[in-house]
């Protein structure tokens, strides 16, 4: 006889409650679906809350020359043309409407003098394009979405973690997980599932990401047979804090440079003049991150191994008004008054361009009933994401995935779930308690972070990547033997044991893809293969599970045609 587990049933189950998950929930609700949202933390604490700089949308409120075509071109060029062009087009066309909608739901952006939404400059964007609220745009966005969602009646399962997707034949049928509070198991039955689980930064040592960012959605989808794409493209944000040690990696918003902040090395040189004389400090993130890294490696770094970022030439009141949380962050955590002197900054693992391979229009994955949006999905950003294009991505493709998931749910009936899958998922979860004297998951996590930081970082080469794969094999073995202390009640060690499985899967996917791509493009830099290779420019790396092994193949990048092709090629 099988155990009875607490069970919930939804038309659409959304995993993740950041911007993409909440916007997907609102999209699905609008179609009349019964919607559930599962999240690892409390509602409103997802990574979106930390987004600072703004939402990129060609509203043309400040620079009237802006339009979706220019935004499209900037996005494609920023992504080194590896983007799915149709996603880039939809994104640029729909972002302004998604921003207006947020405003109609109560969000209050900073204003222009004539009362419109104010927009600021950002790296890689031709025009001032980022709609913002000081440097806390993500907070404004997540509150607006969560308040609306709760009011309209989504069911939110907080501090609940999914460990496996359940299937009926080839289609997704539900998810298995547990409540952190009691450690109790729970089963969700759903006709459609939307993955909105964000990124994978916690596999690196220096990262701007919170504990939640362990690649769960990608690993769950991979486990269920979905394809992953572009996994070699991991964005290192150029400006994270470097000192003191405890704050290493915490994000310093690109808005500092958007508002006029300047990068210098220890000799006082504006080194960006060398790396990108045209866009300077507002070059794309891949370029600026490599520039800072190179300055430090060549001995021109600051005392704590970074670059100086200085906004103190602007009036103190202006800095406090436009960058309030940066002001407080540095004052309270680093004893630096940014209105008076420079910050020390260096690259930090920040964002995953790759992820679950999806259909451009609907966010549909290669598994029936499984959708993905936001950072968990691949395609929009290609080889490098422009700042500000993440929040707009969440809104545009969150909505589309939610709508499509609800439509899919409308057409089918609830699937059967055999109890064997559920029992297997349960015993897998409990295994770490049954082993004694195994290693602590914390030790294995620390070693994984060292491996990824040292061998799969900003600059890569074949030798390091092969070594990383060997290390990952050893780490997988160790993870298979780890044990967990204490009870099932709110046990972070137990949780980390789960997270480790996902981190190891995505780390392997990143490393295999990085090894295969023998060129340097966007965020992926191979010291042994510098420069773009036009042949690789036509291919995306795709990862799929074959039994217990990870298979990699290449798929053709959708070809740009007609006037869009011309548009991207135009000199400007």
């Amino acid at each position, binding site marked *: 006889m099988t155990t009875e587990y607490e069970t919930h049933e939804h038309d659409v189950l959304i995993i993740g409650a950041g911007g993409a998950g909440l916007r997907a929930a609102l999209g699905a609700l609008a179609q009349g679906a019964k919607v559930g949202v599962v999240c690892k933390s409390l509602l409103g604490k997802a990574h979106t809350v930390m987004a600072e700089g703004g939402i990129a949308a060609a509203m043309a409120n400040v620079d009237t020359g802006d339009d979706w075509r220019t935004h499209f071109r900037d996005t494609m060029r920023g992504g080194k043309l590896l983007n799915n062009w149709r996603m880039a087009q939809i994104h640029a066309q729909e972002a302004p409407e998604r921003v207006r909608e947020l405003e109609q739901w109560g969000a209050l952006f900073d204003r222009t003098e004539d009362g419109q939404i104010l927009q600021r400059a950002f790296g890689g964007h031709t025009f001032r394009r980022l709609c913002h609220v*000081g440097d806390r745009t993500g907070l404004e966005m997540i509150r607006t979405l969560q308040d609306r969602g709760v009011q309209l009646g989504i069911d939110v399962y907080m501090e609940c973690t999914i460990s496996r997707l359940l299937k009926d034949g080839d289609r997704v049928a539900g998810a298995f997980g547990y409540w952190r509070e009691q450690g109790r198991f729970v089963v969700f039955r759903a006709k459609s599932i939307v993955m909105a689980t964000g990124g994978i930064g916690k596999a690196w040592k220096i990262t701007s990401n919170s504990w939640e960012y362990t690649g769960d959605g990608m690993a769950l989808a991979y486990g269920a047979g979905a394809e992953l794409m572009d996994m070699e493209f991991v964005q290192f944000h150029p400006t994270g804090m470097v000192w003191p040690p405890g704050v290493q990696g915490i994000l310093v918003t690109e808005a500092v440079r958007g508002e006029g902040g300047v990068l210098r090395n220890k000799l006082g040189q504006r080194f960006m003049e060398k790396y990108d004389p045209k866009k300077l400090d507002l070059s794309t993130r891949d370029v600026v991150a490599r520039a800072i890294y190179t300055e430090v490696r060549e001995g021109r770094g600051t005392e704590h191994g970074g670059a100086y970022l200085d906004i103190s030439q602007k009036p103190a009141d202006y800095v406090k008004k436009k960058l309030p949380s940066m002001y407080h962050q540095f004052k309270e955590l680093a004893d630096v008054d940014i209105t008076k002197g420079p910050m020390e900054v260096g690259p930090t693992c920040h964002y995953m361009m790759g992820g679950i391979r999806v259909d451009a229009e609907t966010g549909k994955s290669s598994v029936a009933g499984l959708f993905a949006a936001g950072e968990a999905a691949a395609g929009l950003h290609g080889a490098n994401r422009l700042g500000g294009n993440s929040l707009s991505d969440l809104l545009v493709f969150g909505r589309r995935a939610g709508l499509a998931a609800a439509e899919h749910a409308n057409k089918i009936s609830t699937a059967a779930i055999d109890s064997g899958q559920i029992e297997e998922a349960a015993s897998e979860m409990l295994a770490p308690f049954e082993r004694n004297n195994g290693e602590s998951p914390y030790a294995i996590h620390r070693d994984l972070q060292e491996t990824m930081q040292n061998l799969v970082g900003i600059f890569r080469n074949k030798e390091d990547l092969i070594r990383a794969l060997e290390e990952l094999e050893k780490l997988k073995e160790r993870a298979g033997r780890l044990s967990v202390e204490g009870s099932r*009640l709110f046990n*972070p060690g137990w949780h980390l044991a789960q997270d480790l499985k996902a981190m190891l899967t995505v780390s392997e996917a990143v490393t295999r893809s990085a090894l295969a791509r023998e060129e340097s493009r966007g965020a992926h830099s191979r010291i042994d293969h510098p420069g773009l290779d036009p042949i690789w420019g036509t291919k995306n790396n795709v990862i799929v599970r074959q039994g217990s092994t990870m298979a990699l193949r290449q798929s053709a990048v959708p070809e740009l045609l007609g006037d869009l092709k011309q548009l991207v090629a135009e000199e400007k």
Partner: protein
Amino acid sequence: MAEAIFEVFRGTREGGQPAAYRVPIAPGMVVLDALHHIQAHQAPDLAVRWNCKAGKCGSCSAEVNGRPRLTCKTRMDALPLDKPITVQPMKAFPVIKDLVTDVSWNYRVNKKIPPFEPRPGADWKVYQEDVDRVQEFRKCIECFLCQNVCHVLREHEEMEHFGGPRFFVRVAGLEMHPLDSKSRTRMLKEELGIGLCNITKCCTEVCPEEIHITDNAIIPLKERVVDEFYDPVLMLVRKIRGAKQESG
């Protein structure tokens, strides 16, 4: 290397006691770093909530040496190290385990508040000076430290009759939104019990976002309640002009 001794509450709803841990100190270290160190090396099941570690998400609230704080912003070099540093869960909420408390009551209160409803025909032209004061309220990161120190909740446990400073801030953000058309004054008076607040400003003192909760949110809202329910002249004026639509 210098060390600090931490006395961290370990226990559940059923009870518990502080446990002592020695933690090496690094430059610029915060209390949350120390808690992570304890998890990684001594107590892997120590329950702590955290997310951003940068003062932006409001997850890591606790009471450090008796003072309600975000542990990610509490520097070790600001604490005396000659005696143990105590870390306790927020007192106003029931303990789940160790430093993690059950804050679900806050989410239930939040759900009762009628959302933003734009004025019909609004043209969405809004000026910065109209936005400034509302943006202050929207800075709230929901750390619930203000709820934790409010004696109406902490000592008198008036959860059934009182919304608490966090939700007065939320209502202020809605009521003072330049384009909102709903009135929530009856709700403030009746369901959220704003009259129970006697403006001791404890909430304002602990707010990590430095929101002037008492002066800018609670007092103006109290004035609205007084105007609406106790001022005969204004009541007459409103009757003649037609009031803002009242929420049910």
